[in-house]
Structure formats: C-alpha cells, structure tokens
C-alpha cells in the first residue's frame, strides 16, 4: 500500500512563510526538513507501485538522494542495473544522467535495446572533499537520456571490461 498523504501534509505545513524562506528557528527548520523527508520516503512507494504498473514488472526500486555529490550505493556496487526516468513534461526531453560508479567501463542500452553513447569520468576532488564518508565512488557514468512526454524510459547499464567496451565501440562503428 502507498499514499502520498504524508508528503501532502508536509507540504501543507511548509506553506508557512518561515518554511518557505527558512526564517524559523533551527530546530523548527529541522522539523520541516524531517517532515518533507518522511513525505518523500512514503512517495517512493507510490512511485514504485506506479512504475510496477507501467512496466508490468514488480521490482525492488531504489532511489538515490545524494546524486548531487556522487553518492549512490546501488550504482557504486552493482555490475548491472536498470535506470528508469519519468518525464513529467508534456514534451519529449533530453537529460544528461550522471551516476557514481566504481567500474572503469560500462555499456548502456536504451529502451529499444540500442547502445547509448556513454562515458566514465573521474569524480572531481571538489566532490570527494564534501561528501566525506558518505560514498566512495571513484568515477561517474554519464549518458544522454531521451524520455518521451509524460512517460518513462528504461536504460540498462552493464559493467564491461575495457576489451568488451572496445569491441562494442568497434562494432557500432
């Protein structure tokens, strides 16, 4: 079961001008943050259920909240994983996706099974400095994702050896 009620309540509370502007006492701001976090946690179940319905597959979906500092235990450890992107816009859109990884080479396949151009770059020192012990990804996998309007795209990521990567590139060429 899932419900968006917790987030709706948290958003209701956060309509107060102190929450909008951050002008409350610190412990009150911390409480606003906690409420929003709990709301987001319950909405993850809502999204998981919706995705299960849309894809026709029930999976254990995971969400990474610290991608802005290149932290995601799932992508850092897994040899293969799927990436789902839902586009809430009424037109097709393109986003660049960056995921923290520890491998050197990955192949990314798009919704129709074709190889998507991707590359692996080192995580910057700037990012390593601020994330502290919250993650240890050495690299980021980057690819361009196209998503249809009001719909989702699924990308399959597979860790490869550098030789396989070379083979895939050569074959594509």
């Amino acid at each position: 079961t899932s419900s968006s009620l917790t987030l709706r309540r948290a958003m209701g509370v956060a309509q107060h001008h102190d929450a909008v502007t951050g002008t409350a006492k610190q412990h009150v701001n911390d409480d606003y943050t906690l409420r929003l976090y709990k709301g987001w946690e319950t909405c993850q179940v809502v999204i998981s259920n919706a995705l299960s319905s849309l894809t026709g597959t029930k999976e254990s979906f995971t969400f990474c909240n610290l991608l802005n500092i290149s932290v995601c235990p799932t992508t850092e450890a897994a040899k293969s994983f799927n990436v789902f992107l839902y586009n809430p816009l009424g037109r097709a859109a393109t986003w660049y996706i960056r995921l923290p990884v520890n491998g050197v080479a990955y192949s990314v396949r798009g919704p129709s099974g074709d190889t998507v151009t991707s590359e692996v770059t080192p995580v910057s020192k700037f990012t390593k400095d601020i994330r502290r012990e919250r993650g240890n990804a050495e690299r980021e996998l980057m690819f361009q994702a196209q998503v249809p309007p009001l719909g989702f795209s699924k990308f399959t990521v597979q860790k490869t050896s550098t030789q396989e990567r070379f083979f895939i590139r050569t074959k594509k060429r």
Partner: protein
Amino acid sequence: TSPTKMENKYYRVEFDPETGLISGIYNLQKGISLPLTQSFYWYNASIGNADSAQASGAYIFRPNQSNPVPVTQNVRSYLVQNSLVQEVYQNFSSWCSQVVRLYSDQPYVELEWTLGPIPVGDHLGKEVISRFDSKLQTNGLFYTDANGRQVLQRRRDFRETWSLVQTEPVAGNYYPVNSRIYIKDKNMQLTVLTDRSQGGSSLTDGSLELMVQRRLLYDDARGVAEPLLECGQYSEGIVVRGRHLVLLDTPQDAADLHRTLALQEYMSPQIILSSGDGVPYSSK
C-alpha cells in the same frame, strides 16, 4: 596551464588566462558575443551602525557596505574534456568552487557551484553572491520572476507606487528570484536560471548577482532569536551545491529557450534504479 576556452555547437566560453575567471560568452548560432566576468563575492553582514541598529539576520539582509569582497582575484582551474561534456573546474578557495560545464548538444552554459562551510573565524557574517559583470547598457532595469511564472521588470532605486528614498543601496534593490533573472539591452539578453529560490539584483548597469549562501553571527531581532548560523552535520557549517544555467540570446528569442529550460529544470526527472530481477506484475 589554465584553460582559455571551451566550446560546443551552441556556445563558446572564454576564460581569462591571468585570473582563470570566465571572461566572455559567445552564442555561436546567433553570432553574438558578450565579454563578461563571473566570480564569487561576499557581503560583510551588518551588526548595526549609527544609522540603524538593525543587524543582518534570517529576516533581514543588510550588508555593512555596498561593495562586496571578492572571494579571490585568481582561481586555480583545469579543463576536463570528454565527448559528452567539457568541464572547467575553478577553485576559488577552500570553501568555494565551481564547475563550468558545456554538454555537447545543450544550448546553455551550466555553472555548478559548491559553497561552504563559510568560515566565520574572523567573526564576520558573510552573505555570498555569484556576480556577472558585463558592458550591457541596461539603464537600471533588470527582470526577475516574482512567483515562478510572471517575469516582472525591476528598476534600480525605484518603486512603482511610491516615491522611494533609498537607504539601503544593496538590500533595497534585492528581489526574489524563483527561477530566473535577466538583464538586456537592444541586442542581447543575459539570462540566469536558478535551481532554487534565491535573492537577486542588478546593482550597476550590466551587472547581475544572485545570493547563493549566507552565514551570520547575529540575530536580526525580528522574532527568530537566533543568528542564521547552521552548524550542519559536522558542526562546522553547511555545504551547499547548486546550479545556474546561463543563456545569451537576442531579446526577441530569449524567452523561447528560457521558458522551456526553466520548466525542464523545475520538473527534472527522478532517477529510479532497479537491479533488473523483477517478477511479472499486473495491478489487477
């Protein structure tokens, strides 16, 4: 060596080889160029003065002088060039850095800034801004979106409905920026999209600034009874990372892109991951 330029099919960004700062942006499709500098500065927060005992605090933005202090005059920078993205990493100080990013086929320049923990060991409250300085003839006008939808024209040291006597030359010209701020002349428009609500202004012609973080040591006596001094998880202050998207276009065409891009920023996708070992499912 410091990088001197980066380029995709839409934009070229040039950097000053002496300072490492951005020195110009070129829209290659429209054939327009704008020499500008972008850097980080901080306002020293007022603790009250002879004119007024009002201190800068959670409710009140009140710098103690009109000229902000540059975080640095020169940045250490390096370029990372890949097929999908080019990035120039700029290190302003131990607590301020920025990545200037050009994706291969995206029509904007992305500035990803990381700020904090803001040092306050010198007992000075700091309100940090990112400022763009250009030669655009803006005649005291700039534009901000008041509510995320309607863009309003702002005029420096002026109010629509009463005769203003400006007593706070900086704070008195700050306005809410929920998604975008821009300045323009007859030929060019410089637009900056934000990823969160910030305060912004244009304090001199051709200049545009956004406040990105604050850390203050005094309460403003407006009811909070606390200074705006977040300690964060590690008790040394918080670190904030955010993005500004910079667009340079003609005033006639600018809205075409900044409206679609701002919506895309606001409604960016949630990334959802799975291991791929699911079982067939039907809601029935």
